């Protein structure tokens, strides 16, 4: 214990003690400090010239009288300047806080406006993208019914000449034949014709259906329904048309038979051009949607034929090959189009040059 106490006392030599405060200064002068306090003050006085000089001055009575009011006024002067500073600081701090709040709000609303604007633009773009393939599909579908509707008029047109041709024939036939014989023939004929109708309808219907079926086989699976609808409409029209055709052909079988032979040939030709157009447009739709494989299969089918759609489909096929990166095939196709010397020759040549 004595060692510890001794150590503590020795270490006191270099202990750091604070300067005398306002209260301690006069109390030390007056001798109103305790022994411990006094010793601590004196330990500090060994090193502190400021405190020692102050004590030396205040020990003189003349300066002791002046000291208290001056010390008080000095303290008040410093405190008032601090107050002013603190008030100014408070105002500045408040202003800074308000400015920060305002700037934060401004930044927030700017960012929010940008985000809303970007979101609106994105939504509008999405809507535009969704709408753009639909009108194309609608356009392609809208073109198909007119193509379909062309077929019946074609058929009607085909049939009408038959009617027109057949009509003069029956007119001429009764004029040459006896008048009473014609009416008698006509009632019997409907009865007979009923039987013959069924027999006659079937072959032409089958004749018509067979080429239709062949064309349907040539067509790919996706548009089977419209083909089927076409078949039904064509069969229906055939049903409608064939009785009238059959009636008139019995009166004049020879020219009617020839016309029958012509009409089936004309009907398939008209139907073939309609299907080519439909197929071409379907291929274009797939092409626009990005389904190159489906488009290529349709273009290939059309490219086998000649004519307008053959050339167009060859050109589009070459474009599809180019999009897929099959430049060799694309080049061959473009050369074919150039050789065909059609409307797409220049475009094909330009594409070849670019390849």
């Amino acid at each position, binding site marked *: 214990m004595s060692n510890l106490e001794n150590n503590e006392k020795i270490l006191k030599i270099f202990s750091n003690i604070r300067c005398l405060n306002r209260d301690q200064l006069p109390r030390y002068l007056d001798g109103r400090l305790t022994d411990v306090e006094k010793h601590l003050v004196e330990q500090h006085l060994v090193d502190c010239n400021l405190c020692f000089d102050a004590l030396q001055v205040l020990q003189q009575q003349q300066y002791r009288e002046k000291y208290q009011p001056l*010390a008080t006024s000095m303290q008040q002067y410093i405190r008032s300047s601090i107050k002013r500073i603190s008030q100014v600081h408070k105002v500045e701090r408040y202003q800074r806080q308000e400015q920060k709040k305002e700037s934060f709000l401004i930044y927030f609303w700017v960012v929010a406006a940008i985000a809303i604007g970007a979101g609106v633009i994105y939504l509008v773009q999405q809507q535009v993208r969704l709408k753009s393939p639909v009108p194309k599909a609608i356009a392609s579908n809208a073109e198909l019914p007119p193509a379909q509707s062309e077929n019946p008029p074609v058929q009607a047109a085909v049939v009408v000449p038959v009617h027109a041709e057949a009509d003069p024939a029956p007119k001429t036939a009764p004029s040459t034949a006896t008048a009473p014989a014609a009416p008698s023939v006509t009632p019997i004929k409907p009865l007979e014709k009923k039987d013959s109708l069924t027999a006659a309808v079937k072959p032409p219907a089958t004749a018509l259906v067979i080429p239709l079926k062949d064309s349907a086989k040539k067509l790919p699976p996706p548009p089977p329904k419209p083909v089927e609808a076409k078949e039904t409409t064509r069969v229906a029209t055939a049903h409608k048309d064939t009785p009238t055709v059959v009636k008139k052909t019995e009166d004049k079988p020879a020219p009617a038979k020839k016309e029958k032979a012509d009409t089936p040939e004309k009907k398939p030709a008209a139907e073939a051009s309609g299907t080519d157009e439909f197929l071409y447009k379907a291929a274009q739709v797939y092409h626009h949607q990005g389904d190159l494989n489906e488009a290529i299969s349709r273009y290939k089918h059309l490219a086998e034929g000649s004519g307008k759609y053959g050339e167009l489909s060859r050109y589009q096929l070459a474009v599809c090959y180019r999009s897929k990166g099959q430049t060799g095939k694309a080049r061959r196709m473009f050369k074919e189009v150039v050789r065909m010397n059609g409307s797409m020759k220049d475009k094909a040549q330009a594409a070849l040059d670019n390849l």
Partner: protein
Amino acid sequence: MLQQLTNLSDKELISRARKLKDQEAEGVLMERYSHLMVAVCLPYLNNGPATTPEEVYPALLQRLSASLRTQTIPKANEWIHYTIRAQQAQAEKNSPFFPSTESREQQQMENKVEKAATNLKEQQLLAATIESALGKLPAEEQYFLKEFYLHAKSFAELAATKNYTIEKTRQILQQAKQKMASLLMNETYE
């Protein structure tokens, strides 16, 4: 805020005043030593031109404020005392304040003692070195230091034993302490 600042040490207040440009901290520091400034300046008031209290004290505060921003201040009391003396010498420009070698050595010893406060072994070691350094001092200085610190005698009692004035007693103690600090710092560097 002011209440919080009054609890800070001198070092912390000086740091705040310099780095954060906290004028409130500067004010608190000045107020802490204002009574000592007033006392030390009293003999020099009304002695010549511009020596009224209304001129002297604000001028002193301004000098201190200017010096605070640029000077390295290890001890506030030394710095204030130096500035007061410079003002009383009517030096127009603020000459820079540099702590003396003795002051720095003493401060280093004080820091060592403060660090060793939590460690008993270090305390014992330090006490032993201080004691050995004490033994190397002249007899009178040794006596004064031992009597003052180990036997807790006052200035008056010490002065009475040797028939010295209190100023001389204090001076002897101050010199003895400075010598001891110098011895101890030189020993550590050796």
